[in-house]
Structure formats: structure tokens, C-alpha cells
């Protein structure tokens, strides 16, 4: 089953993604705290975190639930936040597409930002990897992040009530999201997408059912794509 050469890729992946537990642990804890405060039971919180397995979407769902948003809008908004997973999926397909279906399904279920970022960087530099080696590496990157995310959620949900309000946890989410997004603003197109999305989100904040978020997201995506096209025509796209 696992020749040494193949399983060592699992541990390479594990090592490469291990530092991310520093972000994922507190983030998971925060989710546990907020979920319990929002009225979710422990079993509901843990089912949500282990089946959906996507921090940003889970936070979005919680946030909108607080605002008494209709369920279809919550679903649409949370899944929109997760649309980037479809991008990751697309980008991994040339490397993992030849693996057995059950492995691809498992890889899809466990797909998270950190695993994607580590794996794609490794696949692009280490061109000679076989498909089984890539899969092992991928599952290695998922392991520390996934386990710590789950345990963090448990800890947050259990300790939640004891965390004092002076910690201003209401603002941990905006700071965490901003912290994640800013380094992603690599080009003028990305900056434009974010700028347009923010502007539209503030102008459209009065729309019912939090539709402002969807409108702002779409506006930002269109703006980013337009700027990218413009830069490509000028030949200044990197």
C-alpha cells in the first residue's frame, strides 16, 4: 500500500502546513464561541463544523442567522463565500484528476485554503511527483489544519460562556477576514475587485435579506475581471 517514498510525501505535506495551525486554532475556537452564543447546541455546532468544514462560510452563515435572514439567502451568501473552493478545485484538477474517484471525493470534502495553497505550490515546483504522491502530500497538508480546526471549535463551544465580553470578540471576525484578504490583493485587478465590492456593499447595505452582499460580490468580481482584461490588452498582466 504505502511504499516509503509515497508515505514520506504525506509527512512533507504535514510539515508544510503545520504552521497554519496558529491561525486555524484560534479561528476554530472563535467559531465555537460565536456558534454557542448564537444559540446553537454543541451537537449542531460540531456537525456544522465537521460536515461543512469551511470557516469563512460557517462564519457567514452565523452572521446572517443573527440578522434573521431567510434561509435561502443564508445558503446563497455562504456558498458564494465558498465559491473560491470551485476555483481551487479547478486549479487542482490537472494534478489530481487522474486519481481514483473516492480519493478525489475525499480530497474535495477536505479542501481548505491552507491545503490548497501548500499543495499547489508544491505541485508547481516538484514537477516529477506521481499522482499517488500528490494525493499523499495533499492529505498530509489537510491533517494538522483539519484536526486543530475541529478541536478549536470544540474548545470554543465548551468554554464559550466563560469568555468575557470585554474581549470584544464581535470584532475578531472582521479582523481575521481582513487579515486573510489583504495578502491576496496581488494585482490592480484584485485591489479593484475589493474596492468596488466594499463600495457597493456600503451603498447597498439597505437592501433586504442581505442581498447587498451578493450584489457587492458580483460587482467586485465583474470589476476584477474587467481590469484583468484591460491589463492583458496592455500587456502589463503578470
Amino acid at each position, binding site marked *: 500500500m504505502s511504499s516509503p517514498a509515497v508515505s514520506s510525501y504525506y509527512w512533507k505535506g504535514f510539515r508544510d502546513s503545520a504552521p497554519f495551525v496558529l491561525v486555524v486554532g484560534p479561528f476554530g475556537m472563535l467559531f465555537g464561541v460565536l456558534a454557542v452564543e448564537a444559540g446553537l447546541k454543541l451537537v449542531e455546532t460540531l456537525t456544522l463544523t465537521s460536515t461543512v468544514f469551511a470557516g469563512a462560510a460557517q462564519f457567514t452563515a452565523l452572521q446572517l*442567522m443573527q440578522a434573521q435572514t431567510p434561509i435561502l439567502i443564508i445558503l446563497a451568501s455562504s456558498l458564494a463565500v465558498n465559491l473560491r473552493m470551485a476555483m481551487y478545485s479547478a486549479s487542482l484538477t490537472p494534478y489530481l484528476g487522474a486519481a481514483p474517484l473516492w480519493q478525489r471525493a475525499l480530497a474535495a470534502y477536505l479542501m481548505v485554503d491552507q491545503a490548497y495553497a501548500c499543495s499547489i505550490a508544491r505541485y508547481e515546483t516538484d514537477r516529477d511527483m506521481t499522482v499517488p504522491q500528490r494525493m499523499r502530500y495533499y492529505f498530509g497538508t489537510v491533517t494538522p489544519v483539519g484536526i486543530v480546526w475541529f478541536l478549536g471549535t470544540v474548545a470554543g463551544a465548551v468554554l464559550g460562556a466563560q469568555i468575557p465580553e470585554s474581549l470584544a470578540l464581535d470584532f475578531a471576525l472582521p*479582523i*481575521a477576514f481582513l487579515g486573510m*484578504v*489583504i495578502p491576496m490583493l496581488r494585482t490592480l485587478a484584485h485591489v479593484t475587485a475589493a474596492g468596488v465590492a466594499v463600495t457597493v456593499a456600503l451603498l447597498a447595505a439597505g437592501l433586504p435579506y442581505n442581498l447587498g452582499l451578493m450584489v*457587492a460580490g458580483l460587482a467586485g468580481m465583474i470589476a476584477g*475581471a474587467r481590469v484583468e482584461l484591460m491589463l492583458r490588452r496592455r500587456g502589463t498582466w503578470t
Partner: protein
Amino acid sequence: MTETSPLTAAVAPPDPTTLWILIIGLAIGTFLLRFVFVGFVGDRPMPEWLLRHLRYTAVAILPALVAPLVVWPAATGGQLDLPRTAAAAATIVAGWISKNVLIGIGAGAVTLYTLLYLLG
């Protein structure tokens, strides 16, 4: 700061049936988003216009989600407040200069707590 967080101020806990429908819907929907290409598409090429828009999903949706929370924080009853605005600004500036997630978040957290302490 006002001592009501938006979360504790929330009304009754969510209706269990609605919540479970939401959890199951999110689980299935999220899986399909992750599976769609690596699972269904395989090696077939995708239209370039679609990829070009998908590239900007995260950098559009996440800031759009954050902006109203910064400008009208629920914890202050929707009043713009200095510690939260400054914390957001510090996160942006530190993240932009360092290109590092942890440094950005750290700068925001330090700014928030320092100002809450000084002004509190």
C-alpha cells in the same frame, strides 16, 4: 464600549428544523463546489471568462462582508467607533506591508485592545 455584543443581544435560538436544513444544505452545497471540477470536469477545459470571474470571488465577497461590520459595528449600536475603525485600518496597513496573514491580524488585535483599554 457598550457591553452588548451583537451575539448575546440576538433573539431566541434558531428554530432546530430550519437550522438542520441549513446545515445539510451548506454541507451538500459546499461539497459540490469543491467536487465540481476535480470530480466532474476532470481534464476538460473551462471557459476562460468563467475562470476570470471566479479568480476574484474571495477578494470581492470577503471585503464586502466585512465593510458594514467595520462602519456600523453592532456592538456599539451601529455607531462608528474609533477602536474598531483603527483596528481595521491597522490590519489593512500591516497586512499590505508584510503580505502576512498573522502579522495583519496581530496588528489589528493589538490596536483594538490598546484603544479599548485607553478609551474604556
